[in-house]
């Protein structure tokens, strides 16, 4: 069996085979360990994670306490944990946007300091290496970087669409933004049926949901941050194409309150059957398949994010990271690593997927699970992986997001022209990068 051989090869450690009913899934034997405590957020994938942790406790007899924290309180609690003499948590879950602060601050333990022999199994998705940190380059990369953690959850955007309605209208599943627009025109009937929705809310919402347009059009925020070239390129003609397309679709297809459309509104529109197509994170999938929450059970399909004609899909990653704080006793760090070793086995990941989580091993997506109807999202997820990109992977990320979050929103609601919004954003981003001593500059202004 493929799963087994790969896992065994990857670890080279003692691999226990638990005889579960479904499959002879391999798990790691990690021995007796002191109890650990994990800071984790409430989320649609938490139930799956909790079930997996229960299996770990049952198999190994080791205890894991989960402090389930509201999403809005995670960053604060994680920051607190790494201050002071002793962290109350042995594993922290941090969002991709917060990683730079924790990596640069030196408040985490690189995994090789806990166990020099530890290596991630090959199958584990690293989401563009956001779990490695190269301190000299100030960049997240395995090239010269240290392993700082791994993802318990990797969210990417997909395009949700009503398979039933698209088919009934005699149309093909959408592949490009032109397809999306065509489906919106032909099968959309606002206000009964909105043709396309995605977030337009100021701040993280619009910034994150515009990224697929931006990446797909071949634009970027800064030139080559990995090499230290922070020339601002957000006011490029390609970026304007992306913004024009986004604003055009939202104005034409989305409800009139598109300027404040947030995650909750988006899910509300999609699950009530008020929206034909919508771009949202894969984590939203379970909502559409639950009869108490959705009027479209079995009718929703997922496809990779659309591309511009002749281009590639612009998939943007929003993944979480399990990391180990520095201010912990050695045996706690070892216990945290032991749990991690077990959690990343093919067997544990399979349980995680079955419990409703989104697994982080490539072999889980190519396993027999992917062929089951309830996992029909797995294909879109797997197909998207080669294009998945991290954005804003530098210390000024949160500030850049604030600038973009405002200017893009102003373009969306018509307060600024798209060209002017991008020019203003470029000037402001250049200014804040300059203040931080980055090598920067910016492109010539777009026509306003």
């Amino acid at each position, binding site marked *: 069996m493929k799963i087994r051989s790969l896992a065994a090869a990857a670890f080279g450690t003692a691999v226990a085979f638990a005889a579960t009913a479904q499959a002879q899934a391999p798990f790691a034997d990690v021995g007796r360990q002191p109890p650990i405590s994990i800071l984790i957020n409430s989320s649609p994938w938490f139930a799956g994670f909790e079930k997996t942790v229960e299996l770990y406790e049952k198999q190994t007899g080791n205890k894991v306490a989960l402090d389930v924290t*509201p999403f809005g*309180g995670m960053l*604060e609690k994680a920051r*607190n944990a790494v201050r002071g003499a002793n962290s109350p948590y042995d594993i922290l879950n941090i969002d991709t946007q917060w990683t730079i602060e924790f990596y640069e601050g030196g408040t985490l333990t690189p995994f090789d300091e806990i166990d020099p022999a530890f290596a991630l199994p090959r199958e584990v998705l690293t989401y563009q290496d956001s779990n490695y940190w190269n301190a000299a380059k100030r960049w997240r990369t395995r090239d010269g970087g240290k392993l700082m953690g791994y993802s318990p959850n990797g969210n990417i955007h997909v395009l949700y669409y009503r398979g039933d309605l698209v088919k009934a209208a005699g149309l093909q599943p959408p592949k490009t933004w032109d397809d999306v627009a065509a489906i919106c025109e032909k099968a959309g009937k606002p206000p009964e049926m909105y043709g396309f929705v995605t977030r337009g809310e100021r701040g993280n919402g619009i910034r994150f949901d515009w990224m697929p347009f931006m990446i797909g059009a071949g634009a970027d925020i800064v030139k080559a941050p990995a090499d230290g070239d922070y020339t601002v390129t957000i006011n490029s003609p390609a970026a304007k194409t992306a913004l024009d397309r986004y604003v055009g679709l939202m104005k034409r297809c989305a409800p009139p309150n598109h300027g404040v459309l947030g995650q*909750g509104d988006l899910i509300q529109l999609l699950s*009530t059957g008020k929206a034909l197509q919508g771009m949202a994170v894969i984590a939203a999938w379970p909502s559409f398949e639950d009869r108490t929450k*959705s009027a479209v059970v079995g009718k929703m399909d997922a496809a990779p994010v659309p591309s511009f004609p002749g281009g590639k899909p612009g998939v943007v990653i929003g993944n979480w990271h399990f990391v180990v704080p520095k201010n912990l006793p050695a045996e706690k760090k070892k216990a945290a690593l032991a749990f991690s070793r077990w959690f990343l086995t093919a067997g544990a990941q399979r349980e995680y997927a079955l419990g409703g989580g989104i697994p982080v091993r490539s072999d889980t997506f190519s396993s027999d699970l992917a062929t089951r109807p309830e996992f029909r999202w797995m294909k879109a997820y797997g197909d998207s992986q080669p294009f998945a990109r991290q954005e804003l992977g530098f210390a000024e990320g949160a500030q850049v997001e604030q600038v973009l979050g405002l200017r893009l929103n102003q373009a969306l609601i018509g307060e600024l022209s798209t060209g002017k919004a991008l020019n203003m954003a470029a000037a402001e981003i250049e200014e804040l990068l300059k203040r931080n001593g980055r090598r920067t500059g910016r492109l010539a202004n777009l026509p306003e």
Partner: protein
Amino acid sequence: MIVPLHGHAATIGYCALALSALFIVGPTAWIFLNSIKYQIAIYTGAWVFEPTLQNYVDVLFSRRSDLISNLANSLVVAAISTVLALAIGTLGAYSLHRWHRRKLLARLLLGWTLVFHMIPTLTLVGPWYVLFQALGLYDTLTALVLTHVAINLPLTIWIMMTFFDEVPVELRDAAAIDGCGEFGTFRRIMLPLAVPGLVSAGILSFVFSWNEFSVALNLTSRGTATVPVAIARFAQQYEIQHAQMAAASMVAIVPALLLMAFGQRFVVRGLTTGAVK
């Protein structure tokens, strides 16, 4: 009853009152309605729906929910911090009332309570976390009680000051002539006359502590978490569980109301017996 209402004034007044009450009560009733709906019926804003108690069962008894222990934590923290804030605040207000605005210290202290009240909570939680971790009080209800007392002190002091200031000086002097000492005057004259203020300040302290989120979040973990922290968990990154959130909010109102009613009766009875009216 302060002024009896008659005729047109009464009709107009009560109509306006009913409108204001509708404005206040309507949304609350709507939230209650959501607590007996499935999420999909909440999304569509349906008026005809299949009612369910599932949300209540979920938040109260599901294996993953700690709501009952969260409620217990909240009750302990809110009750103790309210009693302490009232006691400390009333004593302080009395002292400041007697010194009144003559002394610089009294003025400075009153000003300081306002400045403290103006500080964004965001800037307080960091230093408090460090302080309580150093004292070994992180993740205890004691830490939460202490911070809530501090946060509630300014409003309590100011409310009680206005009530003490309203007591006619003649009453106080009469008590002194009757041989009541300073403490006797405070206990028998000032406190009973300030009971309505005490009740309001008590309710406000209690309610504040009951709903306080940021400090509770940062000083507690799973075992010591309070109700607002638990309810905020329903607001996830990618999904808000409105149905469970509404049910948990409704559940949380009940003990708060009961305890406030009980506490109020206790304050009114305890302080007005033996009072010189």
